[in-house]
């Protein structure tokens, strides 16, 4: 009779366990069937009335029943725990497309992007970086560059003067004179990026302030082939390995021979397009062999030393590379423009 009772209790316990669906309910079941006060345990108190034989047998049955119930409840508990965790995790799902915590780098004005990149290219070729004053003496801006007082290239119209002898430099070339003065007749290999000023009304293609990078190499046995190769290397690094350059004769008072340097148009690969006006080439910089008078005036013997120099327009390079359509954009600092230049080269 008691045996039946045990089986009955086990059956009910197992069925209740089976149908329970949360840990609290399961705990209740566990209490009901396995705690000291449970029905099963109360059967235990009846053991004393039984014979030793019977007691042993009944005890074993009771223990087996208890173990069975416990096992099933534990299994259920495991299952419920898993299910509850899964439910919790599912509930905790987030929209991973929402914005992140991120400090985006600032945008670098393309003017500076070009300066920094060009600087790195020339540093790699063993150049050093010089800087010179933006408020410059007439002597350095003109005289020492073979542009004497009555020279037609010195049109008052183009220069911002502060006094008769002081002006805003009209090009970065005066740094050539400073660098030669500093080098005291020794070889020179420098670039100088910087701001320059000319008396121009601002519009889409003109700016009273603009940037240049000056380059100067002075050593023994320098010839124009060296200038060509140096600028070719620069053009490929700056505009891509497919770029070729072409030299055209030109005139600057401080170089002889002087050249304009054209680079094959990156837009059409030199085939001719609207950007290069059908010529396949785009003019990007000027240069030449340092004029013997400039060497002489700055303390070098032109019979012993020679050199080349070049000047590159910073905005011009940026405009070509990025397709910027108005030079004033460099100076307005619209952050929607600046943020287009966050990319590290």
């Amino acid at each position, binding site marked *: 009779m008691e045996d039946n009772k045990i089986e009955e209790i086990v059956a009910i316990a197992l069925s209740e366990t089976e149908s329970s669906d949360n840990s609290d309910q399961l705990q209740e079941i566990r209490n009901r069937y396995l705690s000291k006060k449970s029905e099963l345990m109360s059967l235990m108190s009846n053991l004393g009335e039984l014979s030793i034989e019977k007691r042993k047998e009944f005890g074993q049955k009771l223990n087996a029943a208890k173990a069975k119930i416990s096992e099933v409840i534990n299994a259920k508990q495991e299952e419920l725990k898993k299910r509850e965790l899964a439910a919790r995790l599912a509930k905790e799902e987030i929209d991973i497309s929402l914005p992140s915590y991120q400090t985006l780098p*600032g945008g670098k004005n393309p003017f*500076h992007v070009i300066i920094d990149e060009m600087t790195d290219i*020339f540093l790699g070729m063993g150049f050093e970086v010089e800087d010179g004053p933006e408020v410059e003496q007439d002597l350095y801006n003109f005289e020492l560059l073979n542009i004497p007082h009555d020279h037609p290239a010195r049109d008052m119209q183009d220069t911002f003067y*502060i006094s008769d002898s002081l002006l805003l430099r009209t090009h970065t070339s005066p740094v050539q004179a400073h660098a030669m003065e500093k080098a005291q007749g020794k070889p020179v290999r420098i670039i100088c990026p910087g701001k320059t000023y000319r008396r121009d009304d601002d519009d889409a293609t003109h700016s009273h302030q603009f940037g240049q990078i000056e380059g100067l190499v002075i050593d023994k046995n320098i010839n124009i082939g060296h200038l060509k190769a140096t600028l070719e290397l620069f053009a490929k690094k700056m505009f891509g390995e497919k770029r070729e350059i072409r030299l*055209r004769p030109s005139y600057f008072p401080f170089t002889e021979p002087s050249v304009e340097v054209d680079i094959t148009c990156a837009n059409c690969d030199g085939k001719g397009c609207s950007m290069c006006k059908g010529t396949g080439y785009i003019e990007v910089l000027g240069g030449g062999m340092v004029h013997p008078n400039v060497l002489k005036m700055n303390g070098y013997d032109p019979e012993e030393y020679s050199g080349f120099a070049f000047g590159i327009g910073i905005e011009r390079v940026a405009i070509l590379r990025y397709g910027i359509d108005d030079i004033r954009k460099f100076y307005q*600092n619209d952050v929607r423009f600046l943020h287009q230049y966050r990319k590290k080269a």
Partner: protein
Amino acid sequence: MLVSLRELKKYVNLEGLTAEEIAEGLTFAGIEVEEVTTLASGTNLTIGHILECENHPDSDHLHILQVDLGKYGVEQIVCGAPNARKGLKVIVSRVGAKLPGGEIKASTIRGVSSNGMCCSLLELGVDSKYLSPEQTKGIEELPEDAPIGIDNVLEYLGLDDQILNLKVLANRPDLLSLYNVAREVGAIFEREVKIPTYIVKADFNTELKVGSLTDKCTQFSGREINNIVIKESPKFIQNALRSMGVRSINNIVDIGNYVMLLTGQPLHMYDKDKLPAHNLFAESEYEGSFVALDEKTYDIVKGDIVICSDHKPMCLGGVMGSLECAVDASSKNIYIEAASFDGASIRHTSSRLGLSSESSQRFVKGTNHFQAEDVINFATYLIKEYCDAKSVSNIVTYQSEAKPDLTLKCSVSKINNRLGTSFSKEEVKKALSRLNFEVKFVDDDNFVSVTPSYRLDVTCDADLSEEVIRLLGFDFVPSILPELNVKVGALSAKQKRLRNIREYLLSQGVDECLTYSLVSKKNADKFNLLNSEEKYQLLNPLTDEREIFRSHIAYSLLESANFNVSRQVKDLQLFECANIVTKSSRSEHLSIVLVGNKLLREQMEKRPVNFFDLKGLVEGIFTILGIESSRYKFERFVSEKEELHPGKSAKIIFQNNCIGVFGELHPNALAEFDFGKLPVLLLEMNLDSLLEAKVSVNKMQPISRFPTVSRDLAFVVDKKVAASEIIKAIKMIGKGIVKEVNIFDVYEGINIIGNRKSVAINITLGSDHTLTDKEIVDTMDKIKFELNKKFDIELRM
């Protein structure tokens, strides 16, 4: 310089060369051709004779014409030109004609059919500057003998020409002469060049005396020509002038211009009978006023070159003649002048008076000082032919400078060394000879060269190398990187630090800007937070907006911020590094502007920017440069100007100097911008001392293997006691044991009475052993005791 191919052809054989080929040849020889244009264009053109001209019944200005087109029959054309009339010979573009403005189609105009158009020269594409006002208002009126029905109308009109627009660089003023362009083209294409020379015999000796009282005129030649007749120029001169961009006036003026265009030497003519005396002298000391040809009065100042007769000004040399002795329709006898003037003086005079002409531009760029007599002879020849001059005098000449030595010594090896080429002796000789240099070799390498007299620019052997390479082409120059001593190309320490600062700010999300160095006088002193010294001012600014070389960046950067805010972009972090030059110093500055919100998570999480954002950037800069916080400090910024908030601004003190100022904008300073209620933070900093500061190498600090202990302390203290003072004091009190002190809360509010605040601090204790409880308690007690003594604190826990 506009070069007419039709005129050029007269002096150099251009057979088989197209305008484009010539342009390319010139460009690659260093003479850039900016564009090739046609003077006029049009197909299906012919000449017609207006047989009938009736008014259009439905128009107050249209005419209905019956035009005889010779072999093309008679066409009805509706024409609106006021000068259309019966009997006139006109240019007609027939149906299907392509003109610069479009195609001519048969049409019906207000009910009347029209087959073709009567044209003005404007409609054929001729620039209005070459046309008289009458020519621009109506159709072109052709002479009575114009042949009707012809096809070669442009040729008949002298408009069948292509024009090269040469960009003449400062070293080649000789190319402002068609003759010299012909020589150049001849050299480039190895073509025959024929420049005519004229000698006109003198009929008598003139009384004219010429000379110069100034070194600004080194040469002056004159001749007297009598009994001229002023009339229209011959067609060939008119056509040549039009092609080269000069309007025809009358025969004598046109001859002067024609000779100048061909030879590059400007001429001036005086009415001999109106001169006060038979002398013409250049002076440069004259002061006074002068009524010029254009009937305006100009001031003459010392330094202007003036041609005087009996010390009375007759001409502003190279710029403009006087009205008093101008050649006009009634002139009979003239003096003709060909002189050489100092270019710089002419430039000053012409720019001061705003008078620039073909003549003045040639003087400014430089003329050949040794061709005056040839030029006068050429002009005289034309004047005799086309002004019917009866007699001409001898030429009188003043010349104060000796002919320059045109010989240069050079060598093939020097040329090759400069160019990196390997040209032979023969190649060099041939190239130079093509350019009319006379080359004589003294040995296998060295030679002597004589420069042609018109090449003012060739003065040294480097110039000769340029001549060779521009003629032969830069394709001969091999591209070889120089073999130089190996050298580490690197930024200087200072340059590297500046770049690190910029990269740091960029990494913190601050945008790098670029603003103009020139500012207006009105704004030059606004936000001059560091009180930079005296600023440079331009003598010749273009506008008031750009007059002063700025002494600080802050104002310019605020303007950039304002630009963005006015375009509805209101959350900004901007910086700029720039070199600042004042009368007493040159230094590297940094400015930062923060506006609006700091976006932590785009627009989802953000907070207004505040003082501590900017302070953080400043501290970050010190940190990345390796300058410990003990080496600099912040002090309250006191200023009389209402530019920064007095309670939310600071000075940066480094090496006992104030190197920077930053803080929130003063509410009263916001007014001139569009910032509204947005918070705006501003910094101006002189970076020089940071870029040069000594920084030691980071020696590794051992990290203690004993555990540290953390204790909190909260107390109420007077509001004026700075957090930094409390931290400093705790570090002093617990020296050796206190490792770190961090403020984690500051509270001022209802529960705190009086002018006091509650401060909560976390203190980290540690040592070279595990601290005992007693050590910890003793240290904390000592800290509490000393703080109380120093700051009158009231413990809260």
